[in-house]
């Protein structure tokens, strides 16, 4: 084989390789962009069942994917950070924290996670009848200088309550266990929230609640040691993109949500395109 023939073959091979790399790179870029655009939803766990020990909660996607996403067990009155999950429907099961991992978790409910929406899976009821129920949380920020707040009635000791502010503004009357109000937009300031039995003026519990501009809060009415107590959790602050406490964990579902691996995909794609462009340039230059 002559030198010229060999050079021509090399040039052809290089051109073919360059074309292949270019196509692969472009495809990877498109795929990477698509994956990066996949949105997620948020789920967290709230323990609102007095007398019930910690439970670990598992989300299993109908679409498959990872076997389960665990919402870490929290104590009574506590709310876990949000975990990001791919949109879709999940079975929600629970198992006592620390239980034998081989023991079957008990299916308790299911939740359909919509893109960019947030949910609280709340354990409510007495210990003997612990049930998981779902709260749809708000992410859209309120108007400037306003705060959004809702009340979740999760007290069994006072199964029907009225909630109002110390200024006499009624937030909800006759709220039964378990229930939630819609989010109310209120001026961002310090409020004194009071709870009383429905129809009664005797205050069961009160709490100073500082609502910051742009914040979205939940006031939980819970059973306390001697009566009713109030707990305030912040759902989101100032942005509709990521709720408070959101952590990158437990990406379930068949749809691949954005992960660090996707960034590497983009880098690989860029390298492929660069190598392809270089090979083409070299081939072209050699031809000239």
């Amino acid at each position, binding site marked *: 084989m*002559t030198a*010229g023939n060999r050079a*021509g073959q090399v040039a*052809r091979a290089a*051109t*073919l390789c*360059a*074309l292949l790399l*270019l*196509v692969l790179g*472009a*495809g990877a*870029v*498109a*795929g990477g*962009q*698509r994956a990066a655009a996949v949105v997620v939803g948020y789920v967290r766990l709230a323990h609102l069942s007095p007398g019930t020990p910690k439970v670990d909660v598992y989300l*299993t*996607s*109908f*679409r*498959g994917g990872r*076997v*389960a996403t665990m919402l870490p067990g929290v104590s009574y009155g506590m709310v876990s950070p949000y975990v990001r999950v791919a949109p*879709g*429907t999940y*079975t929600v*099961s629970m198992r006592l924290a620390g239980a034998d991992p081989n*023991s*079957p978790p*008990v*299916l*308790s409910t*299911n*939740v*359909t996670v919509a893109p960019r929406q947030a949910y609280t899976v*709340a354990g409510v009821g007495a210990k003997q009848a612990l049930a998981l*129920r*779902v*709260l*749809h949380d708000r992410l859209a920020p309120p108007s400037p200088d306003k705060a959004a707040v809702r*009340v*979740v009635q999760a007290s069994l000791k006072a199964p029907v309550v009225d909630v109002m502010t110390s200024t006499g503004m009624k*937030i*909800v009357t*006759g*709220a*039964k266990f*378990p*229930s*939630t*109000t*819609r989010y*109310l937009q209120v001026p961002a300031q310090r409020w004194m929230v009071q709870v009383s039995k429905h129809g009664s003026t005797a205050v069961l519990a009160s709490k100073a609640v500082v609502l910051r501009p742009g914040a979205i809060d939940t006031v939980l009415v819970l059973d306390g040691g001697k009566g009713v107590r109030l707990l305030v959790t912040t759902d989101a602050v100032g942005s509709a993109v990521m709720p408070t406490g959101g952590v990158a964990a437990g990406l379930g579902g*068949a*749809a691949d949500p954005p992960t660090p691996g996707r960034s590497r995909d983009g880098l690989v794609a860029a390298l492929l395109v660069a190598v392809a462009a270089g090979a*083409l340039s070299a*081939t*072209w230059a050699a*031809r000239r």
Partner: protein
Amino acid sequence: MRLLESRRGDPSLPGAGGRRPKSHRRRPDRSHWLTDHGVPVAAALAVLAVVVGAVLYAMPDDTGGSGGTGGASGGASGTVSAPAVSATEAAQLARWVAVNVRAGSTVVVPPSLAARVHVAAPALHVQAYDGAPPAGADLVVVSRTPSHQLQALETRTFPLARLPGDGRLEVRQVTDVGGAAALRNEVRRLADAGAQLAQNRRLDLPASDARALRAGEVDARLLITLAALAGEHTLQADLVADPAGVPGSVRYRQVRITRVDGVSVARNPKVAAPLDTFVRAQHATLVPVESRVRRTTSGPAFVMRYPVPVPLGLIDGNEIPTVGP
């Protein structure tokens, strides 16, 4: 020959543009084609790749979902006549009412069931139909207040249960949105969840079963249990349709699982033991009436079967209610 090859390799050389040997005229030399046109071809392919990528990006993830929803509407209305309700079933239905209907509610039932419901649920106000049930449909209305109940009887906006034919009762749901809307919502939820389950690569189902999933024809209890089991195991299964004459809004309440984690149930029945343990540990609503390895028409399989009545509201029906302003 070497000179000719060199000239072919470089068209600028003398003779390259001249008369070529006969063989070259018959077979035009394409060895330079890629070299000459590599960049424009590459650019065209790159543009093509980007366009294809953009089209793929714009495509919805689940093309089967919407079609399934549309095709599912028939499932909700697919009630069929059935034999008269047995004493066992009547007792079961009465217990269902007692458990699922809020105390203080008014329940309107056919006279044959009134006594049983009253015994099973003394906290409910039980009314028997006075005379014939509302025209055109046999309904059991479960409402939260007597006024709602009376209104429902007049306007038929609260059909919560059906009495296909003159016997069997299927208590369906306690709802505030009206019966027709509740049924539509239920089928849509079943179809959406079923379409997702049909995509689950850990669950190997025949194509016809995947279509049934997307059509919302599969019992919610089966959907939930299969999704949970597929989270722990890879399963090969097929759904079993109800025989004609069985009432209910869904056709599939039974599944045969033939392989678990790649192992044939026929070859090793013990492979199904974790599945049985799992389903038996669940709340009563999700415990099948049958869960065992038995011989089927397609050979030994782990069979799970759920009973009628089919409860509604299991998919996405567990949100804490919103009250107040």
